[in-house]
């Protein structure tokens, strides 16, 4: 039996510019021996021909450069979102389009719970699409008055809970005075809890006890299934606190023979001083494996635009909301950038607002003069409001950007009308400008904030359609081939993995997305609808139908 397998396919889109298309790909020891014609590949000697993909289109396995394993963990709870969304087992949950529909769905889940004291938790509620209707504790009391019920919003920053949950947390009392705890006419909390600090005391009673920053075992397996269903073979967890126990668990699970994804967790910057953080991440780097790539840092600089916590430059928010919040002091940011450059560790920075982006650019420049490293590839994550000058500076400094293309679809209308106004909403996530400025670019889902799905993300960047169906920012649309590059080589580049993955060429990992149709010839508006058969990862075959 030979140790070389040659897969035939309807078409292989390689993303290798020397040879963009092929009909066959040869795989040996989990690596790509070559892509070309059968005749060419046969010159390597004995092989087994595998024709299972003969009517499929192969692409390099997709690379998601900004997601969170939390997406996997959340699927153990009841999906209450507005949009249709597929779960890890492939079941499509239709969107719940009213408060009644949400309640009905929770009631259904409640009836099958056997333990009468078990909490019931839901996720991804988004009242923006329901005229901002508040879900009250009276609504959720219709689900149960005897067990605690809690539903997390899509933003992750607001939760609605029932009376029992408030009671268990000792918060069912009148006269609480906190901007994050709205009170009803009776003086008692309405059950809406805004902000992580307010949610924390109730969390344990409604099934949200763990810090959602840490992966759990079931979540990690769910996450992997979603990856296979979306053609994703390498994905980040951005960010993780990576305590000892979690790292051991992640090493064990990703090391299982059938774990189908390469996971790249970034260490969250908070909780350690700058020097301790560097030491901790250097130690993690020592323990890295092929399927668990450790040794990177994630810094959060500001908040979110729709939460009005992103830091904006003049003229600020369109609705006159006060400027947002810093999550790191400029001196602390500067110290971390210096130390990371010195230690050779990569940093990705979350900046939503343009002032936060500006701060990173200004702090990185002197750090680079002190510790020159032309290949650092520090990446601006989200970077949603950057203008063209900022993209040019990012390019000059050797930075990459990972733009939030999905966001534009889900919240673009909101930004146009409310948060930043028409002009800046039009240039949000400016993929065209980024590419024209020469910044290496990826695009992302930020799952679970929006669903994981690189083809959807490509669709969003190519079409720039918002949830209401408008094209917003025509000039910032990119070509299909550019979007496909962004979800493969582009993302791989931001992770320092472009020598290993992202294209189908000799010596790289045998990672493929197996597609039902050819994204380069279909109508661009149909990109998101292309079926995914499954993946090949490190030469191992993972059909979505058999997870």
């Amino acid at each position, binding site marked *: 039996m030979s140790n070389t397998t040659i897969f035939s396919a309807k078409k292989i889109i390689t993303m290798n510019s020397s040879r963009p298309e092929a009909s066959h790909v040869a795989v040996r020891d989990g690596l790509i021996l070559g892509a070309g014609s059968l005749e060419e590949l046969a010159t390597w000697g004995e092989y087994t021909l595998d024709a299972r993909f003969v009517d499929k289109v192969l692409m390099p396995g997709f690379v998601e450069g900004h997601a969170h394993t939390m997406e996997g963990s959340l699927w153990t709870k009841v999906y209450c979102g507005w949009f249709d969304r597929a779960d890890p087992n492939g079941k499509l949950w239709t969107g719940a389009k009213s408060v009644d529909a949400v309640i009905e769905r929770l009631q259904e889940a409640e009836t099958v719970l056997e333990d009468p004291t078990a909490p019931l938790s839901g996720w991804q509620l988004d009242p923006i699409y329901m005229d901002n209707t508040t879900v009250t504790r009276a609504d959720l009391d219709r689900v149960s008055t005897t067990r605690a019920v809690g539903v997390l919003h899509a933003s992750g920053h607001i939760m609605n809970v029932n009376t029992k949950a408030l009671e268990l947390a000792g918060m069912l009392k009148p006269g609480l005075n906190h901007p994050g705890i709205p009170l009803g006419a009776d003086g008692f909390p309405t059950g809406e809890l805004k902000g992580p600090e307010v949610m924390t*005391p109730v969390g344990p009673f409604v099934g949200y006890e763990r810090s959602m920053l840490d992966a759990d075992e079931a979540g990690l397996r769910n996450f992997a299934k979603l990856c296979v269903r979306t053609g994703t073979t390498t994905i980040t967890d951005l960010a993780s606190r990576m305590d000892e126990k979690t790292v051991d668990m992640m090493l064990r699970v990703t090391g299982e023979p059938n774990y189908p994804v390469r996971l790249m967790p970034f260490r969250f910057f908070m909780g350690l001083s700058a020097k301790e953080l560097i030491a901790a991440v250097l130690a993690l780097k020592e323990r890295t494996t092929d399927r668990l790539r450790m040794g990177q840092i994630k810094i959060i600089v500001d908040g979110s635009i729709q939460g009005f916590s992103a830091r904006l430059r003049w003229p600020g928010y369109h609705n006159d909301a006060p*400027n947002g919040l*810093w*999550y790191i002091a400029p001196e602390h940011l500067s110290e971390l950038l210096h130390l990371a450059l010195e230690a050779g560790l990569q940093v990705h920075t979350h900046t939503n607002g343009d002032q936060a982006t500006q701060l990173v650019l200004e702090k990185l420049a002197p750090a680079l003069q002190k510790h020159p490293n032309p290949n650092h590839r520090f990446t601006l994550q989200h970077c949603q409001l950057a203008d063209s000058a900022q993209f040019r500076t990012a390019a000059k400094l050797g930075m990459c950007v990972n733009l939030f293309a999905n966001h534009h679809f889900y919240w673009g209308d909101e930004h146009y009308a409310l948060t930043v106004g028409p002009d800046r909403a039009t240039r949000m996530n400016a993929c065209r400008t980024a590419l024209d400025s020469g910044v290496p670019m990826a695009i992302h889902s930020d799952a679970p904030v929006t669903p994981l799905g690189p083809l959807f993300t490509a669709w969003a960047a190519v079409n720039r359609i918002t949830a209401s169906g408008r094209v917003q920012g025509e000039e910032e649309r990119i070509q299909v081939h550019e979007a496909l590059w962004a979800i493969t080589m582009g993302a791989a580049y931001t992770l320092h993995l472009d020598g290993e993955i992202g294209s189908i060429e000799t010596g790289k990992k045998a990672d493929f997305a197996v597609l039902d149709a050819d994204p380069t010839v279909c109508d661009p508006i149909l990109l998101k609808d292309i079926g995914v058969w499954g993946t090949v990862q490190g030469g191992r075959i993972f059909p979505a139908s058999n997870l």
Partner: protein
Amino acid sequence: MNQEIPVIVIGGYLGAGKTTLVNHLLRNADGCRIAILVNEFGDLPIDSDLIEAQDDEMIAISGGCICCSFGSDMTSALIKLSSHNPVPNYVVIEASGVAMPGAVADNISFLEGFSLAGVVVLADSECIQAQAVDEYLGDTILRQLSGADLIVQTKIDLISPQMVSNVCSWLTSVNPKAQIVATAQGKLPPEVILGVEMVAGQPQSSGHADAGYDSTVFTEIAPCDPDCLAKELATGGLGIIRSKGFVTDYAGQKWLIQIVGERYDVTPMVSSEQDGMVCIGRKGALDLGAIGVIFAG
């Protein structure tokens, strides 16, 4: 008795002197168990000679005090502290340099077992006015100051007396509601920062209200409307930085009153203690006459 643990939030930008002040409090804890909460064990949050033992989450400090790091989850850390044995007498949260101490304080309000005992914001006398116009930080600095009950103007030994008073007036214009105290090395009487200590149910006039502070006990207090009384004391321009004690209302009900700056809190109590309140202010700044008149009804 009221079993709630008083929580003091200490805020202010990097370099304002938070660590110096916290270490001073620990050195002068005098048997009080203070729990310090910090974001992270950064560059030595606690002077090394005070440390008895240390692990990843907690530093044990001589005299029964502790220091815990909470990373990004302050609420969980507080909930954990409430079951710590022995229960701390005070919790001091050292907010990060960019945190809004007022918002941190809001989060105390709904936590079982804790009560807010004041928001203290530190301002570096040398830099605060420049920081307040910084392109990136200006609005953050101003929002921090305006959330304070008590502003500590630090490092006054580094500038001229004239500048000290200029900065003080400027701070007053930023937050007219806050009391302002000045210090060179963070050496303030602990009760200015932590609040008045109760011994055997009685407010104590301070043993170490040294340099520059007066601490006076009033025991002649007529039956009153406790809410009105507290408001008058807090907002009447009487020079009161902190005040605490018991009063009786017209119906004979006992109340605990706590004041810091213009923030006041009245809580009904079951207590047989005698009425009495202690008031702390800068030396010579307490309007003892006017306060006495208010207490007399």
